[in-house]
């Protein structure tokens, strides 16, 4: 903070001295310009020409801003707009140079007459052009040159034109006005602005800190309590902090969902795996405990156990598969393949079984060549699971229709059956892991088939929907086929 003020003070001082130097330099330039305009190219009769020029200047200039005094060799004023008597004497008015001595002389004079004195080095720097050129400050000689009204004094240039002496002066009022304005600016306006900026900065940073504190506190709370259902409250206006808040909340939401999913999976695992494991154990215990068990009995029990183990292993594989698909790592293996071939394969695989079970499986594609960008193996698995789902939960004598068509750059795969369908309340959940509607609980399967379908669809950024087919189930998967090509 101290540093800030120090820098501000140095900056202000530099600014003030720059402005004041500039003001003096401008004044000098102005006087020089006037002087040169009066004295250059005077022609054959310089005295009469300069008188003519001065008289025309006087007519248009304000005596309180600029004064002109022209005196002949006897010290008699011949042209002027200065209302008082002025004596331009080499001895004490005309200063050849503003050297240190001159300044001291003027300072001494100033003390005597108590008038402001301008003794700036910059005044004379560029005007050492000859013995008849000099600079002076009229305020220092105001005894002789009484000041009109409240005028603080004049600053000007005296020179000799032939036998004449010429004074061109400019009111210090004008200089002072500018300097006052500069002082006002640098000493009052800018410090106030800086102070206000400081206050605003403090306010903003307090505000920022307050808003960050809300986020930090909540993150800390979540970190210590492990409660992922908490969210960061969005307190402020719609700005970067509320975007940050919504990102943090979005992340928390995802995390929360993932953890909930894991919890749900482990709960379901506990249920879906513990039950068959328990059955397995009872099966073996019973076989072992019966003293009358024959070799055939034991073999039957072992075979039952083996079957049970197979089904357990399958459930495990399915769980692993879902999580593997969900990691999205397989996207690197995407390539164009012909979906029609895949549908044909599905037809070939399931047609015989469908016939055997009295179902009617129809597979149809709108074109023989239907390029889909994706993972062929995953899509095959997905379609296979869809058909198996109908087989397992649809009921008897089903009509199952699997179709794929290309429409407006999209590829739409649809599976429709006329089986038992899914009840309205079960529909939103059928893609959840281990979800099994009440109707399907008695049917075989591990409740993971459709979650694999959903996981594969998600991997391909495809939109999957399920609805009632009246009767039956209708599942639709829409691929944005062409747009995903890199």
């Amino acid at each position, binding site marked *: 903070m101290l540093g800030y003020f120090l820098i501000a003070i140095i900056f202000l001082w530099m600014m003030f001295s720059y402005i004041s130097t500039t003001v003096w330099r401008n004044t000098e330039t102005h006087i020089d310009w006037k002087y040169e305009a009066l004295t250059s190219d005077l022609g054959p009769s310089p005295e009469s020409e300069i008188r003519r020029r001065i008289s025309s200047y006087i007519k248009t200039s304000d005596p309180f801003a600029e004064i002109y005094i022209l005196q002949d060799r006897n010290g008699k004023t011949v042209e002027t707009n200065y209302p008082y008597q002025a004596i331009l004497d080499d001895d004490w008015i005309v200063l050849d140079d503003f050297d240190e001595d001159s300044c001291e002389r003027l300072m001494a004079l100033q003390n005597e007459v108590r008038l402001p004195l301008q003794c700036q080095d910059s005044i004379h720097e560029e005007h050492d052009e000859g013995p008849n050129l000099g600079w002076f400050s009229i305020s220092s000689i105001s005894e002789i040159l009484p000041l009109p009204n409240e005028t603080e004094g004049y600053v000007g240039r005296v020179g000799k034109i032939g036998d004449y002496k010429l004074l061109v002066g400019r009111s210090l009022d004008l200089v002072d006005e500018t300097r006052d304005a500069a002082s006002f600016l640098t000493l009052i306006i800018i410090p106030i602005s800086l102070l206000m900026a400081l206050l605003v900065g403090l306010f903003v940073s307090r505000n920022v800190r307050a808003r960050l504190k809300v986020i930090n506190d909540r993150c800390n709370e979540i970190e210590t309590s492990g409660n992922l259902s908490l969210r960061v409250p969005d307190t402020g206006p719609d700005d970067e902090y509320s975007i940050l808040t919504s990102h943090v909340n979005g992340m928390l939401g995802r995390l929360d969902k993932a953890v909930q999913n894991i919890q749900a999976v482990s709960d379901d695992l506990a249920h879906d795996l513990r039950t068959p494991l328990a059955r397995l154990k009872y099966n073996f215990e019973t076989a072992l405990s019966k003293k009358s068990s024959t070799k055939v009995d034991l073999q039957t029990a072992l075979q039952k156990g083996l079957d049970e183990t197979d089904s357990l292993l399958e459930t495990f594989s399915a769980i692993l598969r879902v999580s593997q698909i969900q990691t999205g790592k397989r996207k690197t293996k995407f390539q164009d393949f012909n979906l029609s071939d895949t549908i044909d*394969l599905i037809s*070939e695989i399931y047609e*015989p*079984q469908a016939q055997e079970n009295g179902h009617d499986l129809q597979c149809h594609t709108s074109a023989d060549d239907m390029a889909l960008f994706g993972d062929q193996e*995953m899509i095959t698995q997905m379609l296979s699971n869809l058909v*198996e789902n109908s087989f397992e939960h649809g009921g008897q004598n089903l009509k199952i229709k699997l179709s794929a068509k290309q429409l407006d750059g999209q590829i739409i795969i649809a599976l429709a059956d006329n089986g038992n369908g899914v009840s309205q309340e079960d529909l939103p959940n059928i893609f959840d892991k281990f979800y099994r509607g009440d109707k399907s609980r008695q049917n075989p399967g591990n409740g993971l088939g459709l979650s694999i379908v959903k996981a594969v669809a998600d991997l391909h950024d495809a939109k999957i929907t399920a609805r009632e087919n009246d009767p039956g189930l209708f599942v639709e998967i829409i691929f944005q086929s062409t747009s995903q090509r890199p």
Partner: protein
Amino acid sequence: MKVLLIEDDQEAANFVVSSLSQLGHQAEHHVDGQAGLVAALSGDYDVLLVDRRLPSLDGLSIARRLRAADIKTPLIFLTTMDGIDDRVDGLDAGADDYLVKPFSFSELRARMDAVMRRFEKHPVPTESIQIGDLKIDLVKRIARRGGEDIHLQPREFKLLEYLARNAGQVATRTMLLEQVWGINFDPKTNIIESHISRLRSKIDGNDQEPMIKTVRGAGYMLHAF
């Protein structure tokens, strides 16, 4: 046959070693990956069975180092990592086949036979395969038995071709699904049974000697007379 098994699970190793011994094969077992690699580098084995996760050196590295050292002994991964990526990684590292635990010994045996056969008989481009009185023209995609043309669907032909290329060897269900249908999961349908039965009726029809044999609990085999 001399088999090297690198496997850190003692139970699984016992199962494989005892099953192999029963068939009269000589099986050597290493628990540690590094020690297994040293043994395998001798090039002294007919087939290598390697677990993916091993102490001190994992299976993928073993496969890569062996291939880098120009040891071409057939290698089969035995693993619990059954993701598709895992399988692809395994084959990329230089394995000849990939078997997911738990597996039946008959599956392992069929696959060992298959990789050995591939290794011994470098597949030479051939135009036809003749087995007994069955002739398969691989260019024209026609099969003939006893001078009679047999009309086969493309998939049936592919199935027959695979069985013929591996004649006298067991082809398991999963091997057929992988090689003939190109799918790496078991759709739990009778697709194989129905194709085999169709193929049988076509090539074994007319009271000829049945060529396609069912090997109980293992798979199918095309008989070479």
